């Protein structure tokens, strides 16, 4: 079933001229995008199979402007779709015809860095990678590293509670944010948290992170920055089968070793990636692990010796240590370009279920069977250390029948992830993509409780309204 969009509110569409005039009186002309040509750039995000033209796009450059715009929208009952860089694979920033898009991409400055306190205050539209780059000269970095980090914004990371390859050791966004400036729908600007740890009262920060832009618009954030280890070394391990690779991951962690990252790629992915990135991946293996260790040379050697010992017991066929920064970069380049490389071979939808570690092999096998049963192909690439799987289901976007099959296969896979004790999404978010699957993970009363909490912030459901919760089910109190 294609993903449904709500029927646009005719009354709002009819008021478009009036709404644009109203907004035009509040913000500078360069902030407000009205023409169809310019709006087109915002009609979808990275879930490109779906698109809707928004009423208008607003790109403010200050928190005050965001506040003014939200207040206007609240007063005029205009829906608002917050947007960072628009890299959401779950359709978290996809507009609808009766909503304006409020993008924070112009708010992209690093405001303050404090190395002694290990914090940075940044505007929410700054890219994830730019934060790390701004502190790299002192050997620091910002830990969450989604594959889209070159483009995606801190605002989007906070909206989706984004993860990445190095989260195994350093945690996801919620573990690396100390405070936010949040603009509520009525225009009120609140500071939550700050340069200190924890806050009195309820953990509003924890609630905001991952709320997919439904509780307010984040315009600034205080993030933790960390000093990088002395050195880091990714190593490639090739196995004949996915089962052996999976068992090896379990054994490494079972031995009390938590590397910085453990990434998994199946045969299909290895072939696609190697054809594109020429990362030097072996092509004669059934599964590949990238395991990264960090520390001094001696520490890395010691840890690697332990890991290699375990890998040998699990019939590792191929071991390639990076011996230089260039080799290390090549190993990661392959992994980080996996999504892009796959996009060159075929259209795909990227799933994002998380499963208990003990279920990895089982779910991989079942994923293969499910996708094959629809006559499609799948490439698996994922964060094995925390059970976050990313099956890429390959299909032809111009063939509606194939698209329907791909979506159905994806749905079956995610349901299976939930069945074995996992969840629908580990780091991409629900967006529109998994909205209608929420009932597989939650009881109706769980969803009702979440919706009541949502309504505390936005009783009229104006903020990113058609995301996360099934369309037929809204609560206002």
């Amino acid at each position, binding site marked *: 079933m294609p993903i449904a969009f709500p029927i646009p509110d005719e009354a709002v569409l009819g008021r478009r001229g009036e709404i644009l005039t109203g907004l035009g009186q509040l913000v500078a002309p360069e902030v407000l995008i009205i023409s169809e040509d310019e709006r087109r750039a915002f009609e979808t995000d990275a879930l490109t199979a779906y698109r809707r033209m928004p009423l208008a796009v607003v790109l403010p450059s200050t928190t005050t402007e965001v506040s003014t715009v939200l207040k206007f929208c609240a007063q005029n009952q205009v829906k608002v779709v917050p947007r960072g860089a628009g890299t959401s694979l779950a359709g978290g920033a996809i507009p609808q015809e009766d909503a304006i898009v409020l993008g924070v991409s112009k708010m992209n400055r690093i405001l303050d860095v*404090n190395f*002694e*306190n*290990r914090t940075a205050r940044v505007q929410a539209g700054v890219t994830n990678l730019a934060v790390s780059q701004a502190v790299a000269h002192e050997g620091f970095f910002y830990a969450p590293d989604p594959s889209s980090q070159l483009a995606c914004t801190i605002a989007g990371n906070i909206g*989706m*509670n984004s993860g990445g390859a190095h989260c195994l050791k350093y*945690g*996801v966004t919620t*573990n690396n944010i100390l405070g936010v400036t949040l603009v509520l729908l009525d225009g*009120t600007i*609140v500071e939550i948290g700050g*340069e*200190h*740890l*924890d806050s*009195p*009262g*309820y*953990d509003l920060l*924890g*609630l905001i*992170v*991952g709320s997919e832009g439904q509780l307010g618009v984040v315009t600034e954030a205080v993030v933790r920055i960390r*000093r990088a*280890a*002395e050195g880091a070394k990714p190593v490639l391990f090739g196995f004949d089968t996915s089962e052996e690779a999976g068992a090896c991951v*379990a054994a490494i*962690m*079972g031995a009390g070793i*938590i590397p910085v990252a453990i990434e998994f790629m199946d045969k299909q992915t290895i072939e696609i990636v190697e054809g594109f990135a020429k990362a030097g991946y072996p092509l004669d293996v059934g599964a590949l692990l990238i395991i990264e260790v960090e520390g001094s040379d*001696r520490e890395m050697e*010691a840890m690697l010796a332990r890991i290699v010992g375990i890998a040998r017991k699990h019939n590792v066929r191929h071991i390639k240590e990076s011996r230089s920064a260039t080799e290390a970069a090549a190993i990661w380049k392959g992994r980080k370009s996996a999504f892009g490389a796959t996009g060159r071979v075929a259209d795909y939808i990227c799933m994002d279920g*998380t*499963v*208990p*570690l*003990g279920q990895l092999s089982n779910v991989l096998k079942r994923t293969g069977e499910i996708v094959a049963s629809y006559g499609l192909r799948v490439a698996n690439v994922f964060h094995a250390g*925390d*059970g*976050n799987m990313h099956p890429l289901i390959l299909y032809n976007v111009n063939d509606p029948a194939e698209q329907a099959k791909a979506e159905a296969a994806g749905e079956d896979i995610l349901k299976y992830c939930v069945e074995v*004790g*996992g*969840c*629908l999404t*580990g*780091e*991409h978010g*629900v967006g529109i993509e998994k909205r209608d699957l929420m009932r597989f*993970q*939650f009881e109706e*009363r*769980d969803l009702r*409780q*979440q919706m009541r*909490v949502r*309504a*505390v*912030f936005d009783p009229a459901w104006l903020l990113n309204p058609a995301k*996360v919760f099934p369309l037929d089910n809204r609560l206002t*109190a």
Partner: protein
Amino acid sequence: MTRHNPTSEADACAIVAEAAAQRTPLAIQGGGTKRAFGRPPQFESTLSSSLMTKVTLYEPAEFVISTEPGASLSGIVRLLAEHRQELAFEPLDYRPLLGSDGEPTIGAVAAMNLSGPRRIAGGAARDSSLGVRFVNGRGEAIKSGGRVMKNVTGLDLVKLMIGAHGTLGFLTEVTFKVVPSAQRVATLCLVGLSDRTAIATLSAALGSPYDVSGAAHLPAKIGGGARTLIRVEGFPDSVEYRLGELRSLLKAFGTAEVLADGTGKDLWVAIRDATVLAEPRDKAIWRISTAPTKGPDVAALIARTIDARWFFDWGGGLIWLACSTASAAGAATIRAAIRQAGGHATLVRAPEDVRAAVDVFDPPVKAIARLQTGLKASLDPAGIFNPGRMFPEL
């Protein structure tokens, strides 16, 4: 007064539904060791987790444990230790400060977001919390999160429940991520530093690549001379190497000696539980969180007006402070200092009349207060859970 002891989630749902219908306030209790924390609650009945003590899931290979709320913290710690694992956040034990006895429960650890010195490296209790089940004020069993390491499915009500002090619901199951125990724990100690130099030392250590997992400063007034403490944990060869590197890195600040393992271990427990401030017992105790480099300024500013003793954890970002209970335990002075520096202060220990009269937690600004009241109403519409325990209106 009725004391409810549910044996299951369904049982708890029935009790809560009945209390909601009757609008009977319920004081939620675990082991009862922290009754003297927070504002004195107004309640007619208690809802105890004492008969819900089962470990419902423990998968050492997957680093995850789920338990009912009444399971004792010491039991969980022992069980994890059998598998060479532990809770990353090193939960603090309030018994020494509050002079209570009995067994702290894991439910209270979650409800109060209790974290110790490793907060700076391993995160708080909320960061290790993967999932919760709880009974809301409608008597419905609600789940949020789960047992997997990454989960962004829907709103994160787990975070909302952790640290809500039982004002939003009755936890029936909590699921934590656990970590392998370090094979070696070692502590470096520099003696005689002023507060400012000590915090600069700790910042240098924490800003190094050597994975410091504890950073505290005990000023001379605490007894035993000023001691600045830095903890490193991990595989033995790695710890040895990092100690050496840290000692040379910190040379400019003084000579760092490696403490005997037992001495170091005892000191970190004393810092975790603030036992160094437990006596004299008539003093009020505050826990103040600020940016690490602001710590010495905040303490000095407070000491200008009131007589106080203090020490620093979290690299300077956490100040434990003891002062007289007179003048509302110095609340006005302390909160004024915090307003200047940024952060927040919690009154951890004071006589009941003081805790009833003073805001135990920093009073929120209007917009935040409105959100908190809204959240309370959305989860507990009849206002029956621990009324008044955190804030007068919640």
